[in-house]
């Protein structure tokens, strides 16, 4: 939990995390608050299955649930525990963000009003590493998005996206096969 969250903080602050940068990132960014609560929840789910950690987990659940309520309804960031989010995740702003039963790799970015979830009970999207997803994007259904690809703001993904490609529009179509998104991700 801590290594993944420290990687998230590195995406927010742009430097190696110390106690000061962690507190600063969580205080300034609503996305970091949402991620902290999500990582805590994932940790508690794992801890509840381990008999050595059950006592600690049962103390932490009542702390976690109001925090999740705050993040979900006050910040509008709904990171469901069924979503598997890799380390170094970045959430741009706040409001109307819903991630559920999806797999995201390392160092991904999403913007506000993004929905990544399965279509009514099916398999969820699986997204590779270093994927930049713009604001208002919708990735709904069992689509796979390759590593290093870019979904433009407002993109509605209805098919698989190859690695390194850039897609935009509603429905999204691939407009560039080779698109360098390192500047977008801020990972030069």
């Amino acid at each position, binding site marked *: 939990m801590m290594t993944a969250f420290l990687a998230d903080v590195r995406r927010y602050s742009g430097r190696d995390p110390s106690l000061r940068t962690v507190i600063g990132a969580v205080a300034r960014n*609503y996305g970091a608050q949402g991620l902290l609560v999500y990582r805590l929840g994932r940790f508690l789910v794992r801890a509840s299955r381990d008999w050595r950690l059950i006592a600690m987990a049962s103390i932490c659940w009542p702390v976690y649930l109001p925090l999740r309520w705050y993040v979900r309804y*006050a*910040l*509008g960031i709904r990171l469901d525990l069924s979503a598997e989010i890799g380390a170094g995740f970045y959430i741009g*702003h*706040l*409001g*109307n963000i819903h991630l559920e039963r999806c797999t995201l790799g390392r160092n991904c970015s999403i*913007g*506000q*009003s993004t929905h990544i979830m399965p279509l009514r009970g099916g398999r969820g999207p699986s997204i590779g590493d270093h994927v930049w997803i713009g*604001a*208002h994007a919708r990735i709904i259904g069992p689509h796979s998005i390759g590593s290093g690809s*870019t979904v*433009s*703001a*407002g993109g*509605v993904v209805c098919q698989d996206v190859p690695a390194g490609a850039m897609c*935009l*529009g*509603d429905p999204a179509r691939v407009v560039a096969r080779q698109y360098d998104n390192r*500047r*977008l991700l801020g990972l030069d």
Partner: protein
Amino acid sequence: MPPSLRSMLRLVADDARLYRRLTRAAGGPISGALLMFILRSPGLWILESHRIASYLNRSAVKRGFRWRLAYIIQPIAEYLTAIISKSEILADCHIDEDVYLSNRGYIICGAQRIGAGSVIHDHCTFGEAVANGHAGRPTIGRRVWIGPNCILAGPITVGEGATILPGTFLTFNVRAGALVKGNPARVVAESFDNSSLRSSCELEDVPDGKP
């Protein structure tokens, strides 16, 4: 021109008057109905929170009791705006008088300027396009109507009286009076009169009648 507190307060009063006119709220000038109306208009709160931030950002003299008071109030107002209406407005965005922001919130506004008489609906994003060195922020002209779920990205200019229909992803300049829709956007009409759209912003106060 650095703003004075008096001009900021005049803007605030103008905003309240505009919101009452557009949402057709009842009540006299000073009454319980006015208070209820202010409490029920989160869009007005977003705007007033931004007015305070803009005043702090642009005022030349950074001292005095009033400035300190605004300096204390501003982060609290910004936080309340964020958690109640999920909206964020950049402090150096210049919003003219008579601008209506939707009461439904979810507005992430990083525009350079929003002209007078514009109507901005919910779930809108105005921001920088970071791709391919096209960095820059949108400028929205006067009397523009922007529907819900719109994205305006990049150093674009939206001309006076333009209409942007719901769900548009706009990345190019729009001429005055044009009608734009689609994702990616396209111009569907060169001259369109949006005055009736702008005068009937939200149908929240229409009573639930039978069809």
